[in-house]
């Protein structure tokens, strides 16, 4: 497609596009690497990179607060947890669990169909609506996109939105926010309950087992 458009895309390309391509391609590549890697530690590593690149995309989309949250919570919190889990269970036989060939075929089929459905939808949505307002929409979009990608402050508005103060482009979210916080508490308690000490084991038996095995 590059050749077909020739000099045209050279003119349209800008810093934003370059950065988007960088992060987008990284995201896609590492997502696929997660799928195709068999070693679970490497999978975790690729996932980290994929999600970090996603946060870059968030920044590019002007969602700086979400991007940082992605880094703090997702990459710095959830994934560390995940890596912990990987390391706790990373016994040699489980580091690389091979997938059966049949599974691959079915998964590729399902994935392919999903992709075939999703991508055209993406193109349809991305197209400017046919009926009206396209002059304004397109030009503004180009104007914005071709300028330097500045970070638009969103933290305050998001914060107010979470506190239930509706803004001009944000609704009040006090109730979901509270529900989420209760949910989080419940989940933490539940997770601690699930992973808590519950088996009583006589040490000597254990050491004998180890000696025997």
């Amino acid at each position: 497609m590059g050749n077909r458009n020739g000099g045209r895309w050279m003119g349209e390309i800008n810093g934003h596009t370059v950065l988007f391509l960088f992060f987008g391609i990284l995201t896609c590549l590492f997502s696929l690497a997660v799928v195709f890697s068999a070693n679970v530690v490497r999978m975790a590593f690729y996932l980290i990179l994929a999600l970090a690149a996603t946060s870059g995309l968030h920044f590019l989309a002007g969602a700086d607060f979400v991007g940082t949250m992605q880094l703090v919570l997702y990459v710095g919190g959830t994934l560390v947890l995940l890596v912990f889990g990987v390391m706790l269970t990373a016994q040699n036989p489980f580091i690389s669990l091979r997938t059966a060939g049949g599974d691959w075929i079915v998964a590729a089929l399902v994935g392919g169909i999903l992709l075939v459905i999703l991508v055209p939808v993406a193109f349809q949505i991305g197209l400017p609506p046919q009926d009206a307002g396209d002059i304004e929409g397109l030009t503004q979009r180009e104007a914005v996109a071709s300028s330097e990608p500045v970070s638009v402050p969103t933290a305050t508005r998001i914060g107010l939105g979470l506190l239930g103060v509706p803004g001009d482009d944000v609704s009040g979210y006090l109730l979901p926010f509270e529900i989420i916080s209760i949910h989080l508490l419940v989940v933490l308690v539940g997770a601690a309950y699930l992973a808590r000490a519950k088996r009583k084991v006589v040490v000597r038996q254990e050491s004998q087992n180890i000696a025997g095995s």
Partner: protein
Amino acid sequence: MFDLLSQPVGLTHYLIVGAVMFVAGAVCMATKRNALGVLMGIELVLNGANLNFVAFGSNFLERNPAYQLGLDGQIISLFVIVLAAAEAAVALAIVLNFYNNHSTVDVDRADELKG
């Protein structure tokens, strides 16, 4: 329609990246036998969806009011991030429990209901 590079970055670009992530996550969930691998697939799926939310919510990418979600999109994706953390905590607790009881993380062997 397909000359994405000639266009300034817009919703479509984000949606495609999101779709790739989503599909990768789905395939990952379907193929991995390691319980933690499945968990990673879930994270990918959630992130794919999240990216779409952010893209829709960004008035920076999409000025068309018909598609605009405003900051609501960002807030929803925040909720998703937090819920994903919660989900990961629970899932990890389950995986570790499973590992304690069965000495394996192979989901194919998690076919008995008693703990």
